[in-house]
Protein backbone atom coordinates (compact mmCIF):
# COMPACT_ATOMS: atom_id res chain seq x y z
CA UNK A 1 0.00 0.00 0.00
CA UNK A 2 1.37 3.40 -0.91
CA UNK A 3 0.69 6.38 1.31
CA UNK A 4 1.18 10.11 1.01
CA UNK A 5 4.72 9.58 2.30
CA UNK A 6 5.89 7.83 -0.86
CA UNK A 7 7.06 10.99 -2.73
CA UNK A 8 9.07 12.11 0.30
CA UNK A 9 10.74 8.72 0.63
CA UNK A 10 11.46 8.55 -3.08
CA UNK A 11 13.11 11.97 -2.98
CA UNK A 12 15.30 11.03 -0.02
CA UNK A 13 16.31 7.69 -1.45
CA UNK A 14 17.50 9.42 -4.66
CA UNK A 15 20.22 11.23 -2.70
CA UNK A 16 23.70 9.93 -3.27
CA UNK A 17 24.68 7.54 -0.48
CA UNK A 18 21.19 7.10 0.93
CA UNK A 19 20.37 3.41 1.23
CA UNK A 20 16.96 3.75 2.79
CA UNK A 21 14.36 6.07 4.19
CA UNK A 22 11.39 5.38 6.40
CA UNK A 23 8.47 6.97 8.14
CA UNK A 24 8.23 5.40 11.56
CA UNK A 25 5.84 5.73 14.49
CA UNK A 26 7.70 7.60 17.21
CA UNK A 27 6.05 5.83 20.12
CA UNK A 28 6.02 2.29 18.74
CA UNK A 29 9.04 2.24 16.42
CA UNK A 30 7.03 0.48 13.74
CA UNK A 31 7.49 1.33 10.05
CA UNK A 32 4.61 3.20 8.46
CA UNK A 33 6.20 3.25 5.02
CA UNK A 34 9.71 2.60 3.80
CA UNK A 35 11.90 2.71 0.74
CA UNK A 36 14.91 0.55 1.45
CA UNK A 37 17.74 -0.92 -0.52
CA UNK A 38 18.14 -4.67 -0.30
CA UNK A 39 20.05 -5.64 2.82
CA UNK A 40 18.93 -2.77 5.04
CA UNK A 41 17.34 -4.16 8.20
CA UNK A 42 14.41 -1.78 8.17
CA UNK A 43 12.56 -3.09 11.23
CA UNK A 44 15.67 -3.01 13.35
CA UNK A 45 16.77 0.46 12.28
CA UNK A 46 13.22 1.79 12.63
CA UNK A 47 12.85 0.54 16.19
CA UNK A 48 16.22 1.85 17.30
CA UNK A 49 16.01 5.17 15.45
CA UNK A 50 12.59 5.92 16.93
CA UNK A 51 13.92 5.03 20.37
CA UNK A 52 16.93 7.29 19.82
CA UNK A 53 14.72 10.17 18.70
CA UNK A 54 12.38 9.70 21.65
CA UNK A 55 15.27 9.76 24.07
CA UNK A 56 16.84 12.78 22.36
CA UNK A 57 13.54 14.62 22.59
CA UNK A 58 13.23 13.85 26.28
CA UNK A 59 16.86 14.77 26.95
CA UNK A 60 16.44 18.05 25.11
CA UNK A 61 13.32 18.81 27.04
CA UNK A 62 14.96 17.90 30.38
CA UNK A 63 17.91 20.16 29.59
CA UNK A 64 15.55 23.00 28.76
CA UNK A 65 16.58 23.09 25.11
CA UNK A 66 13.06 22.82 23.70
CA UNK A 67 12.06 20.73 20.72
CA UNK A 68 14.53 18.52 18.89
CA UNK A 69 15.37 19.69 15.39
CA UNK A 70 17.45 17.46 13.21
CA UNK A 71 19.21 14.47 14.73
CA UNK A 72 22.22 12.85 13.09
CA UNK A 73 24.22 9.89 14.22
CA UNK A 74 27.63 9.60 12.62
CA UNK A 75 29.20 6.18 12.71
CA UNK A 76 32.24 4.54 11.19
CA UNK A 77 30.46 3.39 8.07
CA UNK A 78 27.40 5.56 7.80
CA UNK A 79 24.95 8.08 9.10
CA UNK A 80 21.47 7.98 10.50
CA UNK A 81 19.43 11.15 10.07
CA UNK A 82 16.17 11.58 11.94
CA UNK A 83 13.58 14.31 12.13
CA UNK A 84 10.15 14.15 13.66
CA UNK A 85 6.74 15.72 13.90
CA UNK A 86 3.25 14.76 15.00
CA UNK A 87 4.20 11.39 16.45
CA UNK A 88 6.05 10.31 13.32
CA UNK A 89 9.74 10.29 12.56
CA UNK A 90 11.40 10.43 9.19
CA UNK A 91 14.57 8.35 9.10
CA UNK A 92 17.26 8.33 6.44
CA UNK A 93 19.97 5.68 6.42
CA UNK A 94 23.05 6.77 4.51
CA UNK A 95 26.63 5.79 3.95
CA UNK A 96 29.56 8.17 4.45
CA UNK A 97 29.31 9.53 0.92
CA UNK A 98 25.95 11.21 1.51
CA UNK A 99 25.73 14.98 1.53
CA UNK A 100 24.13 15.62 4.90
CA UNK A 101 23.46 19.28 4.13
CA UNK A 102 21.28 18.46 1.15
CA UNK A 103 19.68 15.56 2.96
CA UNK A 104 18.88 17.77 5.93
CA UNK A 105 17.28 20.39 3.69
CA UNK A 106 15.03 17.81 2.06
CA UNK A 107 14.13 16.24 5.40
CA UNK A 108 13.25 19.58 6.95
CA UNK A 109 11.19 20.38 3.86
CA UNK A 110 9.42 17.04 4.19
CA UNK A 111 8.22 17.78 7.72
CA UNK A 112 4.99 19.18 6.31
CA UNK A 113 4.16 15.74 4.97
CA UNK A 114 4.46 14.25 8.44
CA UNK A 115 2.00 16.61 10.10
Amino acid sequence: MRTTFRPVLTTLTRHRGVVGSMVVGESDGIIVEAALHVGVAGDVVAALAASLYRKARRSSSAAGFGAVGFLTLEAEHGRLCVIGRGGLVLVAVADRSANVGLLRADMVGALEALA
Partner: protein
Amino acid sequence: MTLAAAERWVEEPLRHFIDDARVRRTLLLHGSGRVLAQHGFARSADVMSACALAAAIRASAGELGRMLDGRPFVELHHAGEGDQLYLAEVPTPRGPHVLLAGFGAESSLGLVRLYRAELAERLAGAAPAAEAAPQALPEDFEVDLNRNLAVLFGRA
Protein backbone atom coordinates in the same frame (compact mmCIF):
# COMPACT_ATOMS: atom_id res chain seq x y z
CA MET B 1 12.49 -6.43 40.32
CA THR B 2 14.60 -9.50 39.95
CA LEU B 3 14.42 -12.23 37.39
CA ALA B 4 13.67 -15.71 38.65
CA ALA B 5 14.00 -18.75 36.42
CA ALA B 6 12.93 -22.33 37.02
CA GLU B 7 15.36 -23.51 34.34
CA ARG B 8 18.86 -22.04 34.31
CA TRP B 9 19.33 -21.99 30.52
CA VAL B 10 16.66 -19.32 30.02
CA GLU B 11 18.09 -16.96 32.64
CA GLU B 12 20.87 -15.19 30.74
CA PRO B 13 18.95 -14.73 27.46
CA LEU B 14 16.01 -13.33 29.40
CA ARG B 15 18.20 -11.01 31.44
CA HIS B 16 19.52 -9.53 28.19
CA PHE B 17 15.99 -9.17 26.86
CA ILE B 18 14.76 -7.40 29.99
CA ASP B 19 17.71 -5.00 30.06
CA ASP B 20 17.65 -4.23 26.34
CA ALA B 21 13.91 -4.02 25.75
CA ARG B 22 13.28 -2.18 29.05
CA VAL B 23 10.18 -4.18 29.83
CA ARG B 24 8.49 -3.88 33.21
CA ARG B 25 7.18 -7.43 33.48
CA THR B 26 8.14 -10.61 31.73
CA LEU B 27 6.97 -14.18 31.69
CA LEU B 28 8.47 -17.01 29.73
CA LEU B 29 6.34 -20.08 29.66
CA HIS B 30 6.04 -23.37 27.93
CA GLY B 31 3.26 -23.55 25.35
CA SER B 32 1.21 -25.57 27.83
CA GLY B 33 1.23 -22.69 30.32
CA ARG B 34 3.98 -24.03 32.58
CA VAL B 35 6.05 -21.08 33.76
CA LEU B 36 9.81 -21.08 33.20
CA ALA B 37 10.79 -17.60 34.31
CA GLN B 38 9.27 -14.43 35.65
CA HIS B 39 10.33 -10.87 36.19
CA GLY B 40 8.33 -8.07 37.76
CA PHE B 41 5.57 -10.09 39.40
CA ALA B 42 5.19 -9.95 43.17
CA ARG B 43 2.78 -12.83 43.79
CA SER B 44 2.80 -16.41 42.55
CA ALA B 45 -0.99 -16.25 42.08
CA ASP B 46 -0.51 -13.44 39.56
CA VAL B 47 2.06 -15.47 37.68
CA MET B 48 -0.21 -18.50 37.63
CA SER B 49 -3.14 -16.45 36.31
CA ALA B 50 -1.02 -14.66 33.74
CA CYS B 51 0.44 -17.96 32.50
CA ALA B 52 -2.98 -19.55 32.17
CA LEU B 53 -4.35 -16.53 30.32
CA ALA B 54 -1.30 -16.21 28.07
CA ALA B 55 -1.46 -19.88 27.09
CA ALA B 56 -5.18 -19.57 26.41
CA ILE B 57 -4.79 -16.39 24.38
CA ARG B 58 -1.97 -17.95 22.36
CA ALA B 59 -4.09 -21.02 21.64
CA SER B 60 -7.10 -18.90 20.63
CA ALA B 61 -5.01 -16.58 18.47
CA GLY B 62 -3.37 -19.58 16.86
CA GLU B 63 -6.72 -21.04 15.85
CA LEU B 64 -8.04 -17.67 14.74
CA GLY B 65 -4.95 -17.20 12.59
CA ARG B 66 -5.39 -20.62 11.02
CA MET B 67 -8.99 -19.78 10.17
CA LEU B 68 -8.27 -16.34 8.74
CA ASP B 69 -4.78 -16.62 7.34
CA GLY B 70 -4.07 -20.35 7.09
CA ARG B 71 -1.35 -20.12 9.75
CA PRO B 72 -1.35 -19.26 13.44
CA PHE B 73 -0.86 -15.70 14.66
CA VAL B 74 2.36 -15.74 16.61
CA GLU B 75 2.42 -12.18 17.87
CA LEU B 76 -0.18 -10.14 19.71
CA HIS B 77 0.06 -6.59 20.97
CA HIS B 78 -2.30 -4.58 23.11
CA ALA B 79 -1.66 -0.88 23.69
CA GLY B 80 -3.26 0.21 26.93
CA GLU B 81 -3.39 3.80 28.10
CA GLY B 82 -0.30 3.38 30.25
CA ASP B 83 1.10 -0.10 29.90
CA GLN B 84 1.30 -2.19 26.78
CA LEU B 85 1.24 -5.92 26.45
CA TYR B 86 3.13 -8.08 23.99
CA LEU B 87 2.54 -11.80 23.64
CA ALA B 88 4.57 -13.83 21.20
CA GLU B 89 5.73 -17.30 20.45
CA VAL B 90 9.47 -17.82 20.80
CA PRO B 91 10.83 -20.86 19.00
CA THR B 92 13.52 -22.73 20.93
CA PRO B 93 15.30 -26.05 20.37
CA ARG B 94 13.12 -27.36 23.20
CA GLY B 95 9.91 -26.44 21.41
CA PRO B 96 7.88 -23.27 21.11
CA HIS B 97 7.76 -21.12 24.22
CA VAL B 98 5.60 -18.10 24.93
CA LEU B 99 6.86 -14.68 25.90
CA LEU B 100 4.58 -12.27 27.71
CA ALA B 101 6.03 -8.81 28.20
CA GLY B 102 4.52 -5.72 29.76
CA PHE B 103 6.11 -2.39 28.98
CA GLY B 104 5.51 1.33 29.29
CA ALA B 105 6.62 4.57 27.70
CA GLU B 106 10.30 3.79 28.26
CA SER B 107 10.12 1.12 25.57
CA SER B 108 8.19 0.56 22.37
CA LEU B 109 6.61 -2.23 20.39
CA GLY B 110 9.38 -2.01 17.81
CA LEU B 111 12.07 -2.43 20.44
CA VAL B 112 10.30 -5.31 22.15
CA ARG B 113 9.85 -7.08 18.81
CA LEU B 114 13.46 -6.47 17.91
CA TYR B 115 14.77 -7.90 21.18
CA ARG B 116 12.30 -10.78 21.06
CA ALA B 117 14.11 -11.91 17.91
CA GLU B 118 17.43 -11.64 19.74
CA LEU B 119 15.97 -13.54 22.68
CA ALA B 120 15.04 -16.41 20.36
CA GLU B 121 18.62 -16.50 19.04
CA ARG B 122 20.08 -16.47 22.54
CA LEU B 123 17.70 -19.17 23.73
CA ALA B 124 18.66 -21.29 20.74
CA GLY B 125 22.30 -20.93 21.75
CA ALA B 126 21.66 -21.58 25.43
CA ALA B 127 19.33 -24.57 25.22
CA PRO B 128 20.83 -27.78 26.57
CA ALA B 129 21.55 -29.89 23.51
CA ALA B 130 21.70 -33.40 24.88
CA GLU B 131 18.68 -33.29 27.13
CA ALA B 132 15.39 -34.18 25.50
CA ALA B 133 12.68 -31.56 25.79
CA PRO B 134 10.30 -32.51 28.61
CA GLN B 135 6.84 -33.44 27.43
CA ALA B 136 4.00 -31.49 28.95
CA LEU B 137 1.63 -34.22 30.06
CA PRO B 138 -1.78 -33.23 31.40
CA GLU B 139 -1.36 -35.43 34.50
CA ASP B 140 1.93 -33.72 35.38
CA PHE B 141 0.85 -30.20 34.57
CA GLU B 142 -0.26 -29.05 38.00
CA VAL B 143 2.73 -30.64 39.73
CA ASP B 144 5.13 -28.99 37.25
CA LEU B 145 3.40 -25.65 37.53
CA ASN B 146 3.43 -25.64 41.32
CA ARG B 147 7.04 -26.78 41.43
CA ASN B 148 8.13 -24.00 39.08
CA LEU B 149 6.12 -21.38 40.96
CA ALA B 150 7.77 -22.53 44.18
CA VAL B 151 11.21 -22.18 42.57
CA LEU B 152 10.41 -18.72 41.22
CA PHE B 153 9.17 -17.43 44.54
CA GLY B 154 11.83 -19.07 46.68
CA ARG B 155 9.72 -21.76 48.29
CA ALA B 156 11.36 -24.80 46.71
